[in-house]
């Protein structure tokens, strides 16, 4: 294998990107300081140029991976000749250096997009400067600290391939990209918030200008977390989808604060309250994304997801502390303009509900953060080793979420400023009534544990709320417009994207909540020894292990069992749970066999040896009710938020015709 020039080209591209980014930062600063429009335009162009340079770097890396160029150090460390093409493509983010390259590239993409698309306001130049600063950090890390393009003078003949868990499922192509899009997307509102502080405009401007960015970032992050859960379910072999693993937790933390944020900005938009709160919240969100990447890449906590420790850790820690310090210094300096001079007519109002919701989200964030770093704290204090795992997080998060879901139901029904007593009472009657009906039905059918019952009740509460919201919006419109109900509904959905989108999103969350509850609380595990050709009864099914098999394909070997799943004597499907090993890697990864149905999944995983001569196989059997509802709910959520993001026809309502006398709900 000769040394090609790809490594040099890639490194050059990254260094050029860094230089351009530095230039962009300086030009932006000068431009805004001297009010020089040409400088500012130059800064904007440089943002695009940075993106182009990083794109070149990414293309070079892909070429190196796809042509098995082992003179590029990252390829030598992470790729393998026998891998299929799609695996080679995703190998780019399968290990530390490549993942930072991906993050940096997406960040430059966002920055370039901001430079090109964002409306020309007072805030934009400063926001661009902040984004340039952030991207200088990431590009700097890629070029200086963790350069994937380092050239190896003596390239090896082949590499080990990526971590086996990262090459046996297509989700590897989706989840990390979504996650980074989410993290990076949340940097934009942060940049604008800082710009607002710097330019002494801490009002609503920075939020209204970034509303879509924030929502899009949130959407990507939510989709990424749900996708990650699905991936975990299909690949790790334990039949679960969320383990409160430290790396999972740190991706969850910014999600919690971002969710709080997208709700509390509405309070600022409507009532001009919570200025300082929102700025701090968006800072916290951004800081948590950096914290998350620090924790994942520093080896400070043990996690199945953590990849790499080394020089990158301290660098990320430094950036995390610096950004926090920078942001809070800025807040302190502008405190007089940012402090809340708020007026609240009544706590029983939309504002009140959002405020309470915020407190709950933040309390949960604190609890999860504390639990995640607690072992470290204990070790620092007393050198004892302790674990904080799923039981702790479950006990803390379930009550918090149930309370949040209660608010999710009543909140949208409360008007701004003050809730009128009679309407409120009617609404509460409906909500409570439906909640009780749901709980009663569940109880009659045998559900008797408190948390599941409460969850079902809360689901009823929320469904009633959504029904009331829709009825409250549609019924007057149908009455007043004289057109058919279908047309009115269509128009309503078309004209109120934000509103309707949020209803759909909340509906999706209710589905997810019920799915999570059922899959956790009513899951049945069994470790069973299936003798060959003898049916084994499991939860109403008959499982028959027909044979054990061993197969190999290019660069991989699997060994497992063929299991027929029947119900009432009728064959439903044949599952092939197996263990897989990739050439060049020692780790053996499970591939469970899963029967998906609407009401539950039957999940089989190998739990013993699969020697072909054995007359039996030991399997871990799992039945999880309603797991698929989680993915379906997630899909509904994505649709809802995506719809809310679509540019609406805001002008339509103003063009009031004679018969368009709609009552605004």
């Amino acid at each position, binding site marked *: 294998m000769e040394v090609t020039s790809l490594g040099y080209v890639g490194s050059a591209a990254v260094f050029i990107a860094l230089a351009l980014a530095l230039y962009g930062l300086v030009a932006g600063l000068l431009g805004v300081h001297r009010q020089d429009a040409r400088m500012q335009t130059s800064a904007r162009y440089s943002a695009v140029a940075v993106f182009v340079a990083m794109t070149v770097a990414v293309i070079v890396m892909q070429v190196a991976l796809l042509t098995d160029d082992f003179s590029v150090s990252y390829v030598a460390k992470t790729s393998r000749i026998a891998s299929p093409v799609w695996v080679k493509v995703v190998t780019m983010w399968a290990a530390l250096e490549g993942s930072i390259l991906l993050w940096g590239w997406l960040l430059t993409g966002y920055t370039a997009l901001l430079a090109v698309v964002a409306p020309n306001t007072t805030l934009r130049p400063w926001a661009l400067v902040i984004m340039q600063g952030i991207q200088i950090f990431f590009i700097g890390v890629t070029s200086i600290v963790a350069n994937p393009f380092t050239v190896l003078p003596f390239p090896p003949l082949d590499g080990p391939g990526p971590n086996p868990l990262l090459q046996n499922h297509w989700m590897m192509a989706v989840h990390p990209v979504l996650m980074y899009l989410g993290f990076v997307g949340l940097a934009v509102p942060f940049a604008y918030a800082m710009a607002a502080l710097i330019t002494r405009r801490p009002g609503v401007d920075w939020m209204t200008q970034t509303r879509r960015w924030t929502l899009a970032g949130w959407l990507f992050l939510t989709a990424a977390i749900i996708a990650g859960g699905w991936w975990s379910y299909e690949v790790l072999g334990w039949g679960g989808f969320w383990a409160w693993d430290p790396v999972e937790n740190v991706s969850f933390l910014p999600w919690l604060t971002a969710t709080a944020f997208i709700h509390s900005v509405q309070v600022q938009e409507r009532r001009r309250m919570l200025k300082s709160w929102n700025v701090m919240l968006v800072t916290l969100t951004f800081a948590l994304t950096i914290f998350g990447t*620090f924790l994942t890449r*520093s080896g400070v906590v043990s996690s199945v997801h953590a990849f790499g420790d080394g020089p990158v850790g301290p660098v990320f*820690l430094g950036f995390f502390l610096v950004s*926090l310090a920078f942001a809070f210094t800025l807040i302190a300096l502008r405190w007089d303009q940012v402090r809340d001079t708020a007026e609240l007519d009544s706590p029983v109002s939309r504002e009140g509900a959002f405020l309470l919701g915020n407190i709950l989200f933040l309390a949960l964030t604190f609890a999860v953060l504390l639990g995640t770093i607690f072992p470290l704290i204990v070790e620092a204090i007393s050198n004892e080793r302790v674990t904080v795992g799923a039981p702790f997080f479950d006990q803390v998060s379930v009550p918090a979420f149930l309370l949040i879901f209660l608010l999710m139901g009543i909140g949208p029904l409360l008007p701004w400023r003050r809730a009128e007593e009679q309407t409120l009472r009617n609404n509460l009657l409906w909500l409570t009534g439906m909640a009780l009906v749901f709980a009663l039905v569940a109880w009659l059918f045998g559900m008797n544990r408190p948390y599941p019952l409460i969850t079902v009740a809360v689901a009823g509460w929320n469904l009633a709320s959504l029904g009331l919201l829709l009825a409250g919006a549609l019924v007057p419109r149908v009455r007043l417009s004289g057109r058919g109900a279908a047309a009115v509904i269509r128009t309503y959905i078309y004209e109120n994207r934000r509103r309707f989108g949020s209803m759909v999103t909340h509906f999706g969350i209710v589905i997810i909540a019920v799915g999570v509850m059922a899959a956790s609380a009513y899951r049945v595990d069994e470790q069973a020894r299936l003798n060959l050709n003898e049916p084994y009864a499991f939860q109403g099914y008959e499982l028959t292990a027909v044979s054990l098999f061993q197969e190999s394909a290019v660069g991989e070997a699997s060994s497992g069992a063929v299991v027929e799943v029947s119900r009432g004597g009728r064959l439903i499907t044949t599952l092939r749970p197996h263990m897989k090993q990739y050439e060049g890697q020692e780790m053996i990864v499970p591939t469970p066999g899963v029967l998906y149905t609407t009401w539950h999944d039957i999940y089989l995983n190998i739990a013993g040896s699969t020697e072909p001569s054995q007359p039996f196989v030991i399997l871990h059997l799992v039945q999880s009710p309603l797991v698929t509802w989680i993915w379906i709910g997630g899909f509904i959520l994505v649709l809802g938020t995506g719809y809310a993001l679509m540019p609406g026809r805001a002008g339509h309502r103003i063009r009031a015709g004679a018969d368009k006398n709609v009552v605004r709900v």
Partner: protein
Amino acid sequence: MAVVIAALGLLFLFGLRRGSPDRIITSNMLGQPVPAIELPVHSNLLTQYGSTFSLPADAAGRPVIINFWAEWCEPCRVEAPLLQDIWEAYGDEVLVLGVQTLDRGRQAAGRSFINEFGLTFPNVFDGDSRSGRAYGLFGVPETFFVNADGTLHEKHAGILTAELLERAVGALLN
């Protein structure tokens, strides 16, 4: 706020300095009697030691070095000759016991391991890894240094060195 940032910074600096959380966790059984062992002896050592080896019975009042190993474990291969040396030097005074664990169903592999390194100290097969579990194993290799009275003197997780073994033997014999 500055205090919080500083505290977090210090905490994570500490975390970075101490490196990845490893399994070098001090044993919970230090100073306490170690769990009893009764396991089948590997067939290539049957003639010397009989079909079953038991602790504390077969220790006969000697201190014991219990080494948990597995056939697939690379560091175990490096330290096997060192243990053999110790056995040859101190065998009358200190018992060396090898326990093959985390190797379900792989007695044959264990036998070849013993033959490969010409081990003559007793080696038993912990088929279902229960003894390893009882001793609080976090992985292999792990070595337990047991006093003559049956209490745990020291646990070493990870690969052994000749100096470490010498020092431990010295401590056990005093």
